């Protein structure tokens, strides 16, 4: 591989590269989500216990997985940013947060839509549900903390520390159904046991998950381009006649 990866560690070089990758991820996301929805609605049979309400899992489970994956990825970028003092890493972390928050919201809302007909309640203070709600507050906290600090370098570091500290909640969400007696059911899919669901249902859910991954890549790359443009906007020193002008341009 003759690619010089360090070249892309500068925002100026990364901006066009991201632009080239976005269409591919977008097309993949669109196709996978359409195929996933088709299998989920037309191939997968009606569940003998839950009827057709179970079809909500085709968005609920992928969204819930994405909410946790994206948090871990965001925190990893934040950690790299803190360790290497690298601006592009902080920019990636900044670009991931809103998408993660959106998927957390979708997971909570679709969970309520499933809980009402199945459990008879929109919401219960169960360990899984509560820890997922806390995850939403963490995302919002990270976004608001960044917005509250004017100095970009400080905002980067402060929100990175908050993101890293909050990683502790991700295993709590994941293992909550095992550690405590929860109303939320246990894992239907795990690395160690065979899946506890029909193959067509599992296929639809996994395809939707990969589709949501592709969507997340596309939308976070598009957002990081906005962040790069916003943050790298200040003109070059050489073109300016005075420090005053540079300060005003910021």
């Amino acid at each position: 591989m003759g690619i010089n990866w360090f070249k892309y560690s500068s925002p100026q070089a990364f901006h066009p590269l991201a632009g080239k990758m976005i269409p591919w991820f977008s097309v993949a996301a669109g196709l996978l989500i359409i195929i996933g929805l088709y299998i989920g609605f037309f191939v997968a049979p009606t569940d003998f216990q839950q009827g057709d309400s179970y079809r909500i899992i085709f968005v609920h489970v992928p969204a819930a997985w994405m909410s946790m994956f994206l948090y871990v990825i965001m925190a990893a970028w934040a950690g790299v940013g803190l360790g290497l003092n690298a601006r592009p890493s902080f920019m990636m972390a900044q670009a991931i947060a809103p998408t993660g928050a959106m998927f957390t919201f979708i997971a909570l809302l679709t969970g309520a839509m499933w809980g009402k007909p199945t459990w008879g309640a929109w919401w219960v203070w169960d360990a899984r549900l509560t820890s997922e709600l806390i995850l939403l507050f963490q995302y919002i906290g990270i976004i608001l903390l960044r917005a509250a600090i004017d100095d970009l370098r400080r905002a980067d570091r402060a929100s990175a520390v908050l993101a890293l500290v909050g990683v502790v909640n991700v295993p709590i969400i994941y293992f909550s159904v095992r550690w405590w007696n929860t109303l939320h059911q246990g894992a239907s899919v795990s690395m160690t046991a065979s899946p506890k669901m029909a193959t067509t249902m599992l296929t639809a859910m996994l395809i939707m998950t990969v589709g949501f991954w592709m969507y997340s890549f596309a939308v976070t790359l598009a957002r990081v381009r906005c962040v790069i443009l916003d943050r790298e906007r200040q003109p070059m020193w050489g073109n300016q006649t005075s420090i005053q002008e540079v300060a005003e341009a910021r």
Partner: protein
Amino acid sequence: MQWGSVSEFFAMGGYGLYVWVSFGVTALCMFGEVLAVWRRHAAAVAESRDVS
């Protein structure tokens, strides 16, 4: 294919409201996010032209 008719499909065995609200809100969020990023990018490009 387990749906006898279009109305049966939309009824979702009596769970239509829950299923379609779930899928509808998810679609709205995702399309809304794409639109928001799109507009933000257009604004950022326009502004970067103004400065430099």
